[in-house]
């Protein structure tokens, strides 16, 4: 029995060791005197220069706030895994979410309530009403700081325009023109004349909604859970039939129909696409992660139909804080948001400093953006950094001149992602099936969306 006893001891010791090693690997880092916050940095795959630019900002902040340590964390908004990341405590302290999702998250208390801290800021009162509303819950609590706004825009490849015999300084202003140009580009250059997102991760529905807005339609009437879904309005039918014609009759849309946000940008940068719709702020991504050659880049306002409600859909990004952040950490988080996201919009010194760091790391300065406060402030901020602007601003003239003449409208407010989700299969059917029955499919989609709205999803 001696050996069996020895065996027991051996096994118990081994088990204990195992547990200890396991526990040690689980234990958090030892406590520090400073406050440490993790902050969302760049998308995975960003260039080394972009990362250096970010690190420079971090260094500066830490110098100004010696009691705060900032740890950058690679980050990209991922709706699918957000809940799990949150539950797992894996989100950075400060991270960003699109306008689309911010309010839903706030209503479900999945981001921190920062009303008190934000109201203390000097420029709090200057936020544009519609913009700050994107980060305010139905109970009036502020759950994020909108720091960037954009409008949907038409991006086009000036080089392909030239090759197709089109004037790159005269982008299309009507849908009929766009259709004609797309056909011309695809016939003369072999690239896709016009491409549109078609992946069923809600981006297909998002762009379909955008096009519908430009024709004068909307996806919802009313507010909250009582909103009525209007997915199958004649405007949506029109938008999808337009798509159908370009896809099957003109054959001007190339051969890839499952683009999503990053992949369509990359295809465009690679010269495969003549025109496409995406947010007006993607230039940074194109340069930082898609190796765009700036010479080919052009951006124009979306063509609008001559309809009463025809307009451009807007969007933006909001900086939010993890819901379990309290006390000193919450203060630190708000200070970081103020420093990194907001200061350059309101303080000249900060704007200049930010521009200098960007330029030093060959990052774009002057990417078209939208007023967070009011146009006066916006123009002033732009004038501060005028000398640092290194984006091909002349190529962006069509957009910069034209966008302020257009009406900007927010995304559908209730169950936004569910509305897009319901539209995804309709867009895909149009791409995949020559004889897709658009009206019938939209009627189905409308039911699905209506159900989601009523259930508050």
């Amino acid at each position, binding site marked *: 029995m001696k050996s069996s006893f020895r065996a027991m001891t051996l096994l118990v010791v081994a088990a204990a060791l195992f547990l200890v090693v396991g526990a040690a690997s689980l234990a958090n880092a030892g406590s520090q005197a400073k406050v440490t916050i993790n902050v969302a940095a760049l998308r995975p795959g960003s260039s080394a220069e972009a990362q250096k630019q970010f690190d420079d900002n971090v260094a500066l902040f830490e110098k100004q706030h010696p009691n705060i340590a900032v740890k950058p964390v690679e980050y990209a908004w991922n709706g699918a895994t957000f809940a799990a990341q949150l539950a*797992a405590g894996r989100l950075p302290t400060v991270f960003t979410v699109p306008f689309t999702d911010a309010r839903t998250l706030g209503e479900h208390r999945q981001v921190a309530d920062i009303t008190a801290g934000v109201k203390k800021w000097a420029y709090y009162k200057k936020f544009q009403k519609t913009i700050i509303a994107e980060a305010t819950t139905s109970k009036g609590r502020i759950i994020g700081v909108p720091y960037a706004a954009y409008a949907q825009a038409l991006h086009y490849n000036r080089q392909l325009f030239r090759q197709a015999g089109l004037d790159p300084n005269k982008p299309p202003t009507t849908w009929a023109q766009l259709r004609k140009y797309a056909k011309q580009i695809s016939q003369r250059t072999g690239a896709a004349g016009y491409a549109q997102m078609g992946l069923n991760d809600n981006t297909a529905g998002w762009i379909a909604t955008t096009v519908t807005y430009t024709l004068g339609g909307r996806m919802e009437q009313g507010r909250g859970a009582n909103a009525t879904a209007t997915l199958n309005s004649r405007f949506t039918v029109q938008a999808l039939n337009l798509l159908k014609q370009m896809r099957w009759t003109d054959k001007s849309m190339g051969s890839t129909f499952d683009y999503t946000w990053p992949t369509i940008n990359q295809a465009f940068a690679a010269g495969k696409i003549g025109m496409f719709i995406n947010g007006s702020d993607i230039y940074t991504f194109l340069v930082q992660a898609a190796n765009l050659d700036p010479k080919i880049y052009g951006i124009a306002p979306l063509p609008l139909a001559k309809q009463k409600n025809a307009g451009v859909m807007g969007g933006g990004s909001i900086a939010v804080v993890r819901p379990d952040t309290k006390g000193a950490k919450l203060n630190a988080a708000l200070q970081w948001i103020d420093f990194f996201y907001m200061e350059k919009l309101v303080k000249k010194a900060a704007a200049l400093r930010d521009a200098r760091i960007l330029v030093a790391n060959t990052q774009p300065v002057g990417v078209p953006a939208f007023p967070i406060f009011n146009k006066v402030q916006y123009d002033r901020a732009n004038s501060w950094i005028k000398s640092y602007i290194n984006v091909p601003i002349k190529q962006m003239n069509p957009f910069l001149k034209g966008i302020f003449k257009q009406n900007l409208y927010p995304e559908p407010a209730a169950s936004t992602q569910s509305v897009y989700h319901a539209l995804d299969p309709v867009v895909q059917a149009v791409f995949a099936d020559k004889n897709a029955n658009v009206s019938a499919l939209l009627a189905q989609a409308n039911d699905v969306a209506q159900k989601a709205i009523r259930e508050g999803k």
Partner: protein
Amino acid sequence: MKSEERTGGLLSHNEWARRDLRWLFGSAQALLFVLLILIGLGPIVWLAKGAITPTIDTLRNPLALFPHGAAWSNLTEAWSQVHVGRYFWNTVVLAFGSWLCQIVVATTGAFVLSVLRPAWGKFIYWLLLGTLFVPAIVLVVPLYIEIVHPPLINHSFAESYWAIWLPAGASAFNVVLMKRFFDNLPRELFEAAEIDGAGPVRLFFSIVLPLSKPILGVVSVFAILAEWKNFLWPFLVLTNSPDRQPLSVRLPAIQPQTQIGVLLASMLIASLVPLIGFLVFQRTFLRGTGLGGALKG
């Protein structure tokens, strides 16, 4: 590879002598050979070719053979720009840990069930068999929630390799396989060792394990391959740690921003270990697969 002169026996000697049957079977086999080369080997050979072909050539004409020479730079770019090496290492670490856990669980478990045979052994064995009826993939949701919110422990295992290593050990197939092997070991050996005063630990390490090399080989080879091929679980667990993801999770994620030549090179590197492992351990693989399927009631 043994070259056996015998066949399955379907065709008798006389039938082999008949010209028309020989022709039929012969040509069918020749066709099979061509198809196997084309279908089994073809895509892999193409992958190897594509991995060292410049992207432009692959895009222009995938079936051309090096019209402008080979581009070994694809491989070096895959290693340095795309950091395939890092993901390769991650895969190795994950495979090693999963293998270890599976071996420990299967050998000790089968030892208990087959050799020690406690009173509660039968009960446990039936519980194990029961899990064979549960399709592995439907456990993904509860397992995921368990990883994120473990009961009793106030710490999430998401993004941790432990969440991949430990569940890998829960393979009833391994335990059953090993138990059957142990069952076939001669009992006299155990009895003799016992008479010599050996306790269960000695029995395990000095008698059972050394005799189990064949089955350990089979289980190991399949364990490592399974982890190398694994996608969904590491994808869910490591979604937000791109640096620590294995090859199978990382490659689709970098596809949009990688040119196809470099992507193919990365895919080839990802396939090297299983391919070479297969060629080296062919007999173990083929025998093990036959074991799993050939039931003789």
